């Protein structure tokens, strides 16, 4: 389509410029039942997987139907969400912090038609467009990142593994059979955008090769001191390099023995790419949580050092996750999060229960705090 102006004048970019107005106030978008009962809620119940009811002290009830969302969605999909909201909910809808979609209605008899409508909508390929679920002690949506869709530092894809994993865990999205809720997250590099460091199960993109150096362009493209300072293990130092044509240029040298392939230098310096088709893959972490319920928040720990990238379905990754989920479902007590379970039974038993291999990669060796992760007691199980 040819260019259509929005009214912006490139000759006078600062003219009629509106700025610093912030987001719209959330109260503008409250459903009437929420507006009327704000701050007056008495209690809530989960009626069935994906359906909640909140009861107000005024007696009002608010029924919420939660459906999965693919997070990366087209405008036509959002229009369909709007169409459902118009049809059932007076035009109101919200998204959760895990990118699920919540439709709210004010009476019980409106719930069933809404759920039936949502479950009847499918993609041409057969996937549910709006699967109802994600509540209580089950598995809700996977927090994830950009992957090969849009980012330049990923070691794996995001949308692809998430789709493959949710397909494997779909029954738990629609059910609440687990001891406690189980959060799964994915980040496509160890910048860890999102929640991988604090999730029950985390999928993390990982490199296994040091960066390649483009000496010819490095000094032109990069601020060399930043690339040096970006390295957590001080593997990078400045150096002078003679190019094939005889000119001497400033560049850096990477001590490959010290490099642990984090990719931070590539973030700072475009001339140090490190993505590699067979080198890159996935690390699985487990046992993190953010809530303060019973025990304090925890970081997730690395439990599988490497699984290769296997697009488009990542079968080894999904199998491993299923294995961990099943072992947890079988072994943990009620209300026990995965990390609490692993700490109660001991991590050696966790590896046994999940049938995971323990390799030397899992032993912390990063600076002084690594020492605290080793076992300074004779308390262990054979």
């Amino acid at each position: 389509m040819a260019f259509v102006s929005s009214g912006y004048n490139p000759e006078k970019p600062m003219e009629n410029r509106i700025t610093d107005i912030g987001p719209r106030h959330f109260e503008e978008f409250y459903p009437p039942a929420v507006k009327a009962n704000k701050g007056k809620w008495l209690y809530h119940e989960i009626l069935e997987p994906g359906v909640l009811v909140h009861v107000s002290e005024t007696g009002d009830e608010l029924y919420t139907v939660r459906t999965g969302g693919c997070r990366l969605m087209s405008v036509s999909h959002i229009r369909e969400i709007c169409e459902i909201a118009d049809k059932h909910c007076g035009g109101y809808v919200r998204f959760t912090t895990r990118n699920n979609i919540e439709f709210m209605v004010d009476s019980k008899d409106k719930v069933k038609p809404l759920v039936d409508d949502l479950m009847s909508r499918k993609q041409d390929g057969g996937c549910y467009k709006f699967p109802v679920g994600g509540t209580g002690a089950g598995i809700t949506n996977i927090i994830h990142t950009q992957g090969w869709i849009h980012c330049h530092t990923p070691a794996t894809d995001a949308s692809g593994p998430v789709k493959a994993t949710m397909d494997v865990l779909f029954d738990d999205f629609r059910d609440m059979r687990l001891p406690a809720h189980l959060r799964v997250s994915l980040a496509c590099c160890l910048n860890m955008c999102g929640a991988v460091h604090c999730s029950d199960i985390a999928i993390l993109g990982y490199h296994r090769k040091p960066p390649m150096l483009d000496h010819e362009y490095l000094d032109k493209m990069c601020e060399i001191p930043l690339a040096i300072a970006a390295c957590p293990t001080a593997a990078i130092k400045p150096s002078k390099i003679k190019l094939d044509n005889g000119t001497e240029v400033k560049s850096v040298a990477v001590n490959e023995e010290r490099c642990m392939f984090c990719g931070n230098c590539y973030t700072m310096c475009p001339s140090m790419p490190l993505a590699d088709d067979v080198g890159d893959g996935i690390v699985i972490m487990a046992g993190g949580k953010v809530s303060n319920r019973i025990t304090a928040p925890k970081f997730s720990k690395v439990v599988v050092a490497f699984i290769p990238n296997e697009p488009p379905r990542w079968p080894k990754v999904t199998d491993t996750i299923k294995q961990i989920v099943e072992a947890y479902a079988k072994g943990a007590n009620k209300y026990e999060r995965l990390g609490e379970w692993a700490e109660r039974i001991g991590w050696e038993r966790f590896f046994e229960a999940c049938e995971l291999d323990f390799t030397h990669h899992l032993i912390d060796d990063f600076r002084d705090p690594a020492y605290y992760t080793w076992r300074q007691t004779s308390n262990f199980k054979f």
Partner: protein
Amino acid sequence: MPEVEFQGKKFNVDEDGFIDDYTNWSEEWVQFVKQEEGISELNDEHKKVIDVLREYYEKNGIAPMVRVLSKVTGFKLKHIYELFPSGPGKGACKMAGLPKPTGCV
């Protein structure tokens, strides 16, 4: 790399309009970016910011932090935005011929 020609000079630029090499910078480049960035008139304050950036980069090999730029030039961040509507990174560094800012920007 695309090549742009301006006032008889040729520059290699990347897709964001940053110059390929710091040493290829010239007065014509400033005029070219001025037009790109929608800055109507270059005054002494623009020149001061550019001089400070180039001097700092030559000495240290990095662009100064925003607070350093403010302190050395004496211009508050707000004023730097008034001079360079795209800001110190996309506006001033581009005009000074510094490499494109990197990281999670």
